[in-house]
């Protein structure tokens, strides 16, 4: 026992550089939002009905669930007249464990009323540049032997263009062949955010459970992701505010989940009701642990948290 105990002490002691850096990052981010008149909110981590999504499974807690993101509660606050809100909270997703995944992770999520997705992309860029600058990262950052320039403006590319540029098939072909995720992982993600951070946007409408559909292009949703060094850091969109449409999408997701024998969720009725009064808004969720991986120059998420599930 003595031997394994000292191993665990050693694995914690090894984090003497990274834990202060993590604390500094969170303080720096919080500082940005407070300075820009955002209200910091706390919403319950344990909730009765998560947003039904086809590929995200919540961890049960008694007859409720641990949140997979604070999205529904934060949008209820938006609907109730809180126009600029942010939250740094723990989120939980079942069966997600890998070099870049922890089943319990830290998410920064924020919403702005009257913003569209391009405005929140720009705000995300400003926030990160400011927060990192306050920590002493001025222009460049080195991650896994790559120099990534943080200077504005960051790259923006549509999903369709990224497929043309990097993939052996077009976006339409990938969707028809049911290969979208595989192509993203093998051909596109590794090439995003290499020289400077990249926003990839206008996701296929089918892959955006809670995002607004583009008016001029009904097959695309106003959804985006941020990548740095091939690592996915954030997901955001112009929020869908049509309650009927949202209910329809939830129904479809519930159906797809039932086929996989995933947990049944009750329809989040209070959220759907609130959606009727929600102003046009945009929101974004950013993985703090992933951002820490960039700052700590590591390709393993285990390196940036004090404890992983395995060493508890």
């Amino acid at each position: 026992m003595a031997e394994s105990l000292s191993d665990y002490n050693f694995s914690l002691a090894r984090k003497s550089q990274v834990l202060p850096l993590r604390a500094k990052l969170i303080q720096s981010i919080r500082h940005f939002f407070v300075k820009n008149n955002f209200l910091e909110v706390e919403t319950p981590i344990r909730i009765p009905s998560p947003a039904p999504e086809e590929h995200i499974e919540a961890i049960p807690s008694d007859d409720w669930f641990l949140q997979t993101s604070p999205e529904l509660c934060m949008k209820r606050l938006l609907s109730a007249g809180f126009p600029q809100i942010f939250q740094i909270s723990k989120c939980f997703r079942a069966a997600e464990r890998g070099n870049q995944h922890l089943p319990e992770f830290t998410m920064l999520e924020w919403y702005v009323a009257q913003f569209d997705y391009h405005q929140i992309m720009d705000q995300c860029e400003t926030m990160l540049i400011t927060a990192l600058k306050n920590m002493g990262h001025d222009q460049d950052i080195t991650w896994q032997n790559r120099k990534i320039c943080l200077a504005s403006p960051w790259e923006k590319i549509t999903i369709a263009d990224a497929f043309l540029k990097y993939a052996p098939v077009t976006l339409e072909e990938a969707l028809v062949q049911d290969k979208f995720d595989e192509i993203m992982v093998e051909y596109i993600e590794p090439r995003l955010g290499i020289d400077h951070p990249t926003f990839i946007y206008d996701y296929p409408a089918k892959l955006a459970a809670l995002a607004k559909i583009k008016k001029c292009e009904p097959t695309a949703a106003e959804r985006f992701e941020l990548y740095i060094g091939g690592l996915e850091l954030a997901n955001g969109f112009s929020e869908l505010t049509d309650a009927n449409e949202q209910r329809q999408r939830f129904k479809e997701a519930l159906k797809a989940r039932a086929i996989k024998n995933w947990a049944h969720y009750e329809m989040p009725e209070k959220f759907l009701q609130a959606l009727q009064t929600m102003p046009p808004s945009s929101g974004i969720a950013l993985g703090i642990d992933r951002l820490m991986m960039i700052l700590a120059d590591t390709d393993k998420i285990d390196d940036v948290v004090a404890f992983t599930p395995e060493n508890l």
Partner: protein
Amino acid sequence: MYTASDLRKGLRVKIDNEPYIITEFNFVKPGKGQALYRTKLKNMINGNQFERTFRSVDNFETADLREKKMQYLYKEGDKYCFMDNENYEQVYLTETQADDAKNFLIDNIEVEILLFEDKPIGISLPNFVELIVTEAEPWAKGDTAAGSTKPVKVQTGYTILVPTFVTEGEKIRIDTRTGEYLTRVKG
């Protein structure tokens, strides 16, 4: 039977009726997309490697693999002949299957033969073997630089780098996992 979520480095599975070992593994999940399992696989019969991405619905048969103690007898053409110590049956491996282990096979050495569905497909050697140096340049006087090495040939025909003081006829210990010289053996 395994599902994709059971996959991990070192796991052996059966794909298209052949045994594979997972040499690299990572769980990935593109934003809001489905869980994917990226692997590098090595065919345990022919050594071919490739990358493959699986979905969580994919599943795999377990590969029927076991090891059995056998004695190396001799080489015949490009085949290596071993004898099962229990039933005295003889089995053969090709050069490719013998892989790096062939550098350390001396007569009568006891090895573990890897069997896939009872067919021999590979060798696992003991971690250390002792072999006699059969060809070595004499130690050049004056060459006293610490750490300098020279190539010598051992009785299996394998060429290995050893310290310059090792001479012909001496026995040396070799780590079969790295193929490197460890020490001289007195005796």
